[in-house]
C-alpha cells in the first residue's frame, strides 16, 4: 500500500451521481451519530508528536484495509506484519490504531478483530453476522469447496472425543472417496489440505504422537475453529448429515451444551486487540 496520503478528491464518475458531501480537505469526524464523542476524543487525546487527526485517520483506514485483505486468505495476521507493512513509524500509537480499526471493522463491516490465542499477537476477523444459505447465490467467490472437507474433519474430530489419529481420519475419508495420495476432483490434494493448509489457517492442530512406529499424528481443533464456530454448530451439522437429532448422541450433546453455557457467560478478560495501558476515550463515531 502506498505510504503517501493524498488529499481526497472525488473524480466525477460517469454515472449521474452528484459529488455528495463537500470536497473538503479536513476529515469529517462528526458525521453520523456520536458527533459529541468524536469531539471529546479530539479534546482528550494528547498530541503524540506532530500527528494530526487526519493522519491518524488515514493510518486507521490503511490498517482496516490491510486486515480485510489479509483475512481473506484466512491466514492469521501477525502483529509484526502489521508493524512492518502498515504502521511503520506510528509504532507508538499502535494500540490506539488497533483499537480504532477494530471498532470500525465491527461497526462498518460486522467483523470482530480477535486475538487468536491470548498473548499470541496474531489476529483474525470473526464474522458477527450469521451465514445464511442464500448468501451463496449472491457471493462473488462461491466460498471454497474445501470448506466442505474441513467441516467433515471437524465433525469427525469432535465426535471422536476432540482428538483423532491421522490414520483414523484417512480410514474414514477413504470411504468417501478421499485419499491422502490421490488427487481429488473437488478438494485437490486432500493430504496437503488437511495437514498443511487447514493447519496454517489455524482451523486444525496437527501434532506428532511420540513413540509411534510408523509415525502417527493427532488432529485436533485449532484456535480459529473455536472462534468461528462451536461444538453445538458442528454437532448440528453432523446430525443433519445423518438425518438425525443432535440429542441422539447424548455424550456429545452434553459436551456441546456445556460449551454453549461457557460461551454465554461473560468473559473475564476477553481477547482484545488493544493492549493499551492508558484508558481509551469514547469510540470513534
Amino acid at each position, binding site marked *: 500500500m502506498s505510504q503517501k496520503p493524498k488529499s481526497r478528491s472525488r473524480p466525477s464518475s460517469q454515472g449521474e451521481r452528484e459529488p455528495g458531501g463537500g470536497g473538503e480537505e479536513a476529515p469529517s469526524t462528526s458525521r453520523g451519530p456520536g458527533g459529541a464523542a468524536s469531539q471529546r476524543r479530539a479534546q482528550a487525546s494528547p498530541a503524540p508528536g506532530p500527528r494530526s487527526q487526519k493522519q491518524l485517520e488515514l493510518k486507521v483506514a490503511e490498517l482496516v484495509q490491510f486486515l480485510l485483505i489479509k483475512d481473506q486468505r484466512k491466514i492469521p495476521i501477525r502483529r509484526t506484519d502489521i508493524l512492518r507493512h502498515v504502521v511503520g513509524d506510528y509504532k507508538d500509537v499502535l494500540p490506539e490504531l488497533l483499537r480504532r480499526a477494530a471498532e470500525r471493522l465491527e461497526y462498518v463491516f*460486522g467483523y470482530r478483530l480477535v486475538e487468536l490465542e491470548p498473548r499470541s499477537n496474531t489476529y483474525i476477523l470473526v464474522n458477527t453476522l450469521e451465514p445464511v444459505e442464500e448468501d451463496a447465490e449472491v457471493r462473488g467467490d462461491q466460498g471454497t469447496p474445501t470448506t466442505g472437507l474441513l467441516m467433515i474433519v471437524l465433525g469427525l474430530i469432535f465426535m471422536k472425543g476432540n482428538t483423532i489419529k491421522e490414520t483414523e481420519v484417512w480410514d474414514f475419508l477413504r470411504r468417501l472417496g478421499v485419499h491422502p495420495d490421490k488427487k481429488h476432483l473437488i478438494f485437490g490434494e486432500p493430504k496437503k489440505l488437511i495437514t498443511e493448509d487447514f493447519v496454517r489457517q489455524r482451523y486444525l492442530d496437527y501434532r506428532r504422537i511420540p513413540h509411534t512406529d510408523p509415525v502417527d499424528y493427532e488432529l485436533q481443533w485449532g484456535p480459529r475453529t473455536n472462534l468461528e464456530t462451536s461444538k453445538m454448530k458442528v454437532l448440528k451439522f453432523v446430525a443433519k448429515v445423518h438425518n438425525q437429532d443432535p440429542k441422539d448422541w447424548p455424550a456429545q450433546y452434553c459436551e456441546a451444551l456445556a460449551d454453549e453455557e461457557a460461551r454465554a457467560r461473560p468473559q473475564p478478560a476477553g481477547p482484545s486487540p488493544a493492549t493499551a495501558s492508558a484508558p481509551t476515550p469514547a469510540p470513534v463515531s
Partner: protein
Amino acid sequence: MTDVHRRFLQLLMTHGVLEERDVKRLQKHCYKVHDCNATIEKLEDFINNINSVLESLYIEIKKGVTEDDGRPIYALVNLATTSISKMASDFAENELDLFRKALELIIDSDTGFASSTNILNLVDQLKGKKMRKKEAEHVLQKFVQSKWLIEKEGEFTLHGRAILEMDQYIRETYPDAVKVCNICRSLLIQGQSCETCGIRMHLPCVAKYFQSNSEPHCPHCNDYWPHEVPEVFDPEKERETGQLQQTLSLLSWDHPGPADPTRPLQHCAGPFLTKVFLPQGPCPCCGEHLPQVCQFRIPGPSGFYSDVYCDSPI
C-alpha cells in the same frame, strides 16, 4: 449502519465489480435476511448512506458505466492511495509490472486497445522475477478473469473495474497521455473521436447525446459525426435476458445449461442437496455430453457455504 448494510458490504466485497441489476438483487437479499418488512430504500440513497460511513475509512462504493455498452457498474474503491494497490495483494511483483506496462500501452494507444503481441514484447523489461512470454499470456488471462482487463480479438483494454479503481492513479501518472470525454469529462479509454477536431466521447455518452438525432454533429466543431451512434442502454430490455443468464449462472459447472426443476431426484438424497442440478444431455453451447450430477451446499465454519458436486453419474 445496520446489519442490512453490513451484510451488503460483506457480500459486495466478494465481487471486484458488480452490475447494477446484481447490486439491486444483493440489496434485496440483505433486506430479506434482516428486515423483511421494511421497504427497500432506493439504491442511490442506500449507497449514499453507506458511503457516508465509509468516508472515514477513505473508501467508497463508486458507480461507473461500462465503456462499451453503457451498463451501470459498482465497485468498492480506495480513495486514499493512488496506485494499483488493490491488485498488489493478488499478484506478484513481475505480474503487477506487466499490468503497468499493458496499462501504459493502452493509454498511449489511439483506440484504447493494446495488442497481445506488443504487451508480450515488453516481457524482458519487467521488474522482479524473469517471466517468459508463455507465462505472460497466462497472467494476462488472469487479469481478464479477475476483471482488470477485457480481451477482444487478441487485444486488451481496461475493464470498467480498473477504470473505476485507478482513475486517480491514471490521471496522476499519465497526465499528458490521458484522454477525457468531451461530454462527461471523465477518463476515456475507449470511445469515438471527431475526425476533424479530435475530441473524444464515450460510446454511452455518444448514445445519450445523439439520442433521436438523425443528423449528429460534433459538439465542438459542428462537423458531421461520421460514426455509428450506439443504442442507449435499457435496463428493462436487459431484465429478460438477465433472468435467463441468472438461471444459467446458478448452474455453474463447465457448461451452463437450463435447469429442469420438475425432474425428481434419483441419486444423492443428502440433507444439503440443493434443488439445482444439471440435466443429462448435450451442452446447449458446445454440444458436449453432460453427465447428471447433484449439487450440495455445505455450511462452513466461517460463514461460507461451499458448493460441492457429486461426480458419480446418475
